[in-house]
């Protein structure tokens, strides 16, 4: 066959049997050599014109189909790459959320960990607060004892005062007794001195105890304040942490839902990608069909050349008989060269059948 078109060659191109070639029988119907010559020239011209018109059209279709397929292939690859990246991102997000909120391996949730830690913290604070409360009670007891001691010292001071008064009375009585009361006056004087010292000592002790009691009262106030603040802070921290954990759990739920939707979308896209892969094979099917058409056009061109050869021989004055016989032989040869089946039988892009031997 004449090599007259530029395209990727396909072995055994496919052609469905067409109608028999129009071969005017060399009979009496052909009245003159001139008529037959014109007929041959017209047939050759028509066939050549049809081939020359259809060939670039089919080549253009083939080129457009190839370009479209190439563009679609590139788009498909880019789309698939994007979907794969989306899938990987979704998996990473899911893993990150799982790792941060569910814990790795232990099964204990982050929320549980936070709440457990805070419970321990609050318990610890509560224990401190309780101990502080006990200390406050003990301080109160010490303060009460101090107050009782102050009362007792007050009584001692009073006793010292009375003792001093008694010693004064004793001194007066000793003076009345003159020389007989001289010894007694000395004793009364000493008792008076002791009473003075006792009073002074009681005052000093009372002063010290008062100072201690005031210090205890300040300590008591501080401890009560600390205990109260510790509990307030702990309870507020716990409430805030609970809100935080709840917020994280809601976020986790939302993200998990979104990731699920992403995965579902990725699955749908993957399914569509499968359809695109199947449909893109139209390029191969169309190409094979076009190549078959182009080969058939080659046969038509051969026919045109055969008719042109007849015209030339008749124009040169050769007798009709041998020239027509040669034409007939050539046309039979061309018809025999046609492939009598179609490789592409499917009229749709539905997936083909599968046979395992």
């Amino acid at each position, binding site marked *: 066959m004449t090599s007259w078109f530029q395209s*990727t*060659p*396909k*072995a*055994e*191109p496919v052609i469905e049997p067409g109608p028999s070639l129009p071969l005017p029988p060399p009979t009496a119907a052909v009245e003159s050599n001139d008529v037959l010559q014109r007929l041959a020239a017209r047939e050759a011209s028509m066939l050549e014109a049809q081939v020359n018109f259809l060939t670039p059209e089919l080549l253009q279709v083939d080129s457009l189909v*190839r370009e479209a*397929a*190439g563009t679609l*292939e590139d788009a*498909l*690859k880019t789309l*698939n790459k994007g979907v794969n990246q989306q899938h990987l991102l979704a998996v990473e997000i899911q893993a990150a959320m799982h790792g941060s909120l569910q814990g790795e391996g232990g099964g204990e949730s982050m929320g549980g960990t936070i709440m457990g830690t805070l419970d321990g913290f609050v318990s610890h604070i509560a224990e401190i607060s309780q101990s502080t409360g006990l200390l406050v009670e003990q301080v109160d007891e010490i303060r009460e004892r101090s107050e009782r001691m102050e009362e007792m010292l007050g009584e001692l001071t009073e006793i010292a005062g009375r003792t001093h008064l008694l010693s004064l009375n004793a001194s007066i009585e000793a003076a009345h007794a003159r020389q007989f009361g001289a010894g007694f006056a000395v004793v009364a004087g000493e008792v008076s001195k002791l009473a003075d010292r006792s009073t002074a000592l009681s005052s000093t002790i009372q002063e010290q105890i008062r100072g201690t009691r005031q210090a205890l009262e300040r300590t008591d106030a501080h401890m009560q304040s600390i205990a109260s603040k510790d509990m307030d802070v702990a309870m507020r921290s716990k409430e805030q942490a609970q809100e935080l954990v709840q917020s994280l759990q809601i976020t986790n739920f939302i993200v998990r839902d979104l990731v699920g939707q992403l995965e579902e979308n990725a699955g749908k896209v993957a399914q569509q*990608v*499968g359809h695109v*892969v*199947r*449909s*893109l*094979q*139209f*390029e*191969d*099917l169309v*190409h*094979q069909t076009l190549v078959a058409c182009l080969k058939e056009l080659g046969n038509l061109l051969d026919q045109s050349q055969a008719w042109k050869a007849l015209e030339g021989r008749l124009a040169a004055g050769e007798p009709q008989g041998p020239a027509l016989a040669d034409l007939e032989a050539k046309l039979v040869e061309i018809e025999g060269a046609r492939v009598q*089946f179609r*490789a*592409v*039988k*499917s009229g749709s*892009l*539905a*997936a*083909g*059948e*599968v*046979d*395992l*031997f």
Partner: protein
Amino acid sequence: MARCILTVDDSSTMRQMITFTLKGANFDVVEAEDGVHALEVAKGRKLDLIITDVNMPRMDGLTLVARLRALPEFKFTPILVLTTESDQSMKMRGKEAGATGWIVKPFSPEKLMDVVNKVI
């Protein structure tokens, strides 16, 4: 190590679609444009599966199947024919040449992977 599949087709679109599908399932894929090229690519290579078209220039797919079967290293390698040809007589020729299975184009990725996983 990923399994290696040779795909033979004179259509670059078909080769790309087959490669796209197989690589998506983590197979290594090598390509050839026709039977002659396929024999060159297959030489000295460990192949787990060969998928070939029928109508190709230089050497058609059925000749390729017969030539591969004559080589000891590919005597038992699964060979699938992927073609537009659907005539029973052609399928019989493929079976006689030594093909493992016959898939009519166009293929769907799911069906192709089903068959690949069955024969490999």
